[in-house]
């Protein structure tokens, strides 16, 4: 495997050599293909997405395929995770009505979370969600669900009312508010859903890269070692911080989805 396939920066550059600091930038998110299947080229982020799928399915298959009434440790862990989404997201946002959407929310939460977690897994160290196509794909699914449920619950006219006309406001306000609501519900929401996740993971990865590259780049000279050590400490701190952000972003994505579904299910006023 060459560096172009798995690493995001030049490794042969050090402090006081003639090359400058190889700061991470957009090319840190572009990888050469790892391998090809037929004519299809698979790069590192794609491989991580496939791996995420396999890991999620494998883990929950092992835990839930033959569930026991008295759970083993493995099943118990999976149950706690599942219960977190089912109770903490679906039940919290929608109550009993949310039960049919639990599979969607569970899939979203774990898919996003595992794709995020790759950012701090040694050798992978790249959040698949920092490639915008993956958050966009998920946001597309959420958007389709949102639209479908809105029109299924309220009919065509009621659905449009539900999307554009929030209830309980003075009549004059609607002149301004209706277009804003329409744009917000139909265009802004899927966009922000995508960008929030993408940008958080993108920025987190850049931040980690700055200090990781800094640690490597400043290593070698006496004075550089101090910089290097500082940079390493920052890397460790940021890794812990990123761990938190990864889970938080997965949670936010799921909660927002649940809240959109909940709004779609509301009867038009």
């Amino acid at each position, binding site marked *: 495997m060459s560096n*172009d396939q798995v690493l995001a920066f030049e490794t042969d550059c050090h402090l006081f050599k003639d090359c400058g600091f190889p700061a991470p930038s957009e090319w840190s998110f*572009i990888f050469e293909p790892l391998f090809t299947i037929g004519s299809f080229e698979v790069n590192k982020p794609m491989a991580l997405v496939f791996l995420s799928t396999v890991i999620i399915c494998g883990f929950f*298959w092992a835990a839930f*395929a033959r*569930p026991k009434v008295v759970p083993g440790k493995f099943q118990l862990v999976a149950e706690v995770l599942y219960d977190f989404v089912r109770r903490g997201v679906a039940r919290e946002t929608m109550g009993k009505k949310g039960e049919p959407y639990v599979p969607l929310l569970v899939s979203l939460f774990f898919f996003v979370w595992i794709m995020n977690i790759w950012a701090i897994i040694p050798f992978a160290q790249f959040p698949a969600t920092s490639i915008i196509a993956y958050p966009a794909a998920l946001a597309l699914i959420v958007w389709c669900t949102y639209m479908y449920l809105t029109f299924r619950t309220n009919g065509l006219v009621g659905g449009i009312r539900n999307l554009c006309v929030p209830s309980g406001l003075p009549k004059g306000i609607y002149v301004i508010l209706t277009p804003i609501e329409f744009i917000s519900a139909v265009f802004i929401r899927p966009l922000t859903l995508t960008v929030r996740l993408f940008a958080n993971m993108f920025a987190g990865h850049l931040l980690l890269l700055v200090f990781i590259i800094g640690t490597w780049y400043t290593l070698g000279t006496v004075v550089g070692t101090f910089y290097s050590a500082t940079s390493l400490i920052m890397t460790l701190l940021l890794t812990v911080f990123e761990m938190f952000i990864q889970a938080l972003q997965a949670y936010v994505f799921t909660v927002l989805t649940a809240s959109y579904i909940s709004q779609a299910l509301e009867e038009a006023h």
Partner: protein
Amino acid sequence: MLMQLAAEEPQSPVVPVVPEIVIGLICFGVIFFVFYKKLLPSINKALDERREAIEGGMEKAEATQAEARQTLESYREQLSEARHEAARLRQEAKEQGAALIAEMREEGQRQREEIISAGHAQIEADRKQAAELLRQDVGKLAVELAGRLVGESLEDHARQSRTIDRFLDELEAKAETAGTEAAR
């Protein structure tokens, strides 16, 4: 090298490319399908079973407790009943005993009086009979004595006194024989 790559493919990181979207959709589809079709129904069933088992267990425990309480209650009731019964029996026995004693005493009294009165009657009867016999005998003896006295009036005084003595001896012997007969 990476710089060159970026220059060759001027791909902005904020523009999603279609193949990757498709991959994302497919992977999500797989995960969703596995969860929706197989895993969540399976685990939900297990969770429901567990809840039922726990609730069933709790209900059973409650039922057992209620039963135990009921049994204790009935035992207590029985115990107090038994105590009452025992007290009642004791009281009854005491009363019966007293009644019995009183009855016995009365009976004894009655029998004593009966015996006494029978004794009195017997004595009276004996006395009457004796008086009757005596009266008959005295009459007869007086007549006999008088006859003898008249028959021998001419004889002397000595004879007279012998006759009287003889009579009296006879009388005595008679009385003795009558006494022994009576004694016998």
